[in-house]
């Protein structure tokens, strides 16, 4: 039963309402600046730069006036994975370049040799991953889903001029986000109905692959059937309202780039340039 109830808490970052500068920024500039900083974190090779990016991203949480709980909530699901990856790096990873004289052996036990450089390398790759997880969570914590979709659609608008379906892509995204909770509710109902008929009440071992797959299929097939029934309904509804794609459409929400947005974009571009240069 606990499993059925957990469906509603979909594990995507949550929105925290405050009135910080980050919350008031245009979603477009947040998406682009976020992309630039992500790229900077991925390409950054110097240990100091990785640490500076990490500190910068954490300080953005303060700028956004998010509670400490927001950081913890973002990191809790990845913590075990990060620990495993970190350990793996310590034992098997390579040593980062440019750390003169840090190859001091700390521990040598059987085939396992741990040096200071390797420890630093593992710490850096964990810091890099934590930065990226925090950055994605920050975007979702300061931007509502509908603002994100509007921003994405506006960013994709130039594609329309090239004959590519920018509007349609954004429409796909907004339909997906609108219908995800509705489908989750339907899935939960199916799960409860099947539990009431004792399907899925007993725990199967991991070795019963075919039975596990069939049990999941018994949940997934009604989910897809529900989705395809809604496809029919929504298509009819959109046709009846004369939906004809992006041309000539007006918008309820308007986003405007302000001074803060340009400053943020400039800073993010500078960070990426710095990361590429060093």
């Amino acid at each position, binding site marked *: 039963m606990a499993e059925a109830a957990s469906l509603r808490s979909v594990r995507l970052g949550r929105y925290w309402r405050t009135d910080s500068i980050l919350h008031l920024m245009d979603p477009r500039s947040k998406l682009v600046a976020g992309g630039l900083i992500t790229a900077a974190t991925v390409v950054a090779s110097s240990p100091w730069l990785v640490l500076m990016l990490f500190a910068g991203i954490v300080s953005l949480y303060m700028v956004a006036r998010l509670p400490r709980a927001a950081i913890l909530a973002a990191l809790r699901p990845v913590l075990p994975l990060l620990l495993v990856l970190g350990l793996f*790096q310590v034992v098997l990873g390579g040593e980062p370049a440019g750390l003169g004289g840090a190859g001091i052996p700390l521990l040598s036990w059987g085939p396992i040799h741990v040096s200071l450089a390797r420890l630093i390398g593992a710490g850096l790759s964990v810091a890099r991953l934590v930065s990226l997880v925090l950055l994605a969570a920050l975007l979702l914590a300061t931007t509502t889903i509908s603002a994100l979709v509007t921003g994405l659609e506006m960013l994709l608008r130039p594609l329309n001029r090239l004959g590519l379906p920018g509007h349609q892509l954004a429409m796909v995204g907004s339909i997906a986000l609108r219908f995800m909770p509705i489908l*989750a509710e339907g899935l939960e109902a199916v799960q409860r109905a099947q539990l009431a008929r004792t399907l899925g009440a007993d725990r199967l071992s991991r070795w019963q692959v075919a039975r596990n*797959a069939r049990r999941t299929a018994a949940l*997934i097939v009604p989910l897809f059937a529900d989705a395809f029934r809604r*496809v029919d309904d929504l298509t009819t509804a959109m046709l009846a309202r004369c939906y004809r794609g992006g041309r000539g459409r007006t918008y309820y929400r308007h986003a405007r780039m302000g001074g803060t947005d340009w400053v943020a974009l400039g800073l993010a571009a500078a960070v990426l340039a710095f990361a590429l240069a060093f």
Partner: protein
Amino acid sequence: MDAQERGIRRVVTAGLLLAVTLLLALTPVGFIPVPTPAGSATIAHIPSIIGGILEGPLVGLIVSLGFGFAAFLSPLVPVKDPLVIIVPRLAIGVVAALVYLGLRKANKAALLAILFVLLAAVLWAAKVVSEVYLWLGIAIAVLAVGGVLAGGLWLFRGDTQVVGLAAAGVAGSLTNTVLVLAAAVWRQVAGVTAPVAVSIGLMQGIPEAVISAIIVVAVVASVRQVGRRRGSRL
């Protein structure tokens, strides 16, 4: 159905399949327990495959793109390199659509011929592997011959449309496994070296491909009403 309705239908189908993808990628429903070190096989790529089969390569591509973004934003995936997480996954829906389109009209003789060509390819790969790890090569060869025998028997029992669906399911799933792992090796993701990738691929990719085939057939059969009996064949 006129062109306008078909266009709207494509957009709406892609949107709802993407909603299913997000649901499967971000909740425990999308993870099936299997006896591998990771402990679970994901089925979040299955909507991409189904989108490709039902609405063509473009819808498959769009849902795959959304799947890549979902994985990129998901807190459960610690690797945040778009070249590893997003780009390889774009091929899932496209490959599934092409395999399905290619096999849809094929008759039993053609399918059998394809099966034997595949067997020959796998046996050759097994020979190459056996020069390095003898036991692994023999295991692959035995599995391949067994798989072809089972596949051949099934081919003469079931109807060819179901075979096309299952093949598209397997192809889409293997595309996901192989391309993502290859990209991880190429981009030197922490801890993923070529031997590690091969072992993950064998242990994770095969159960995922089998599960994907079972679920794709079940879903498309119930949506399209194909199969010997009308309705779902569960």
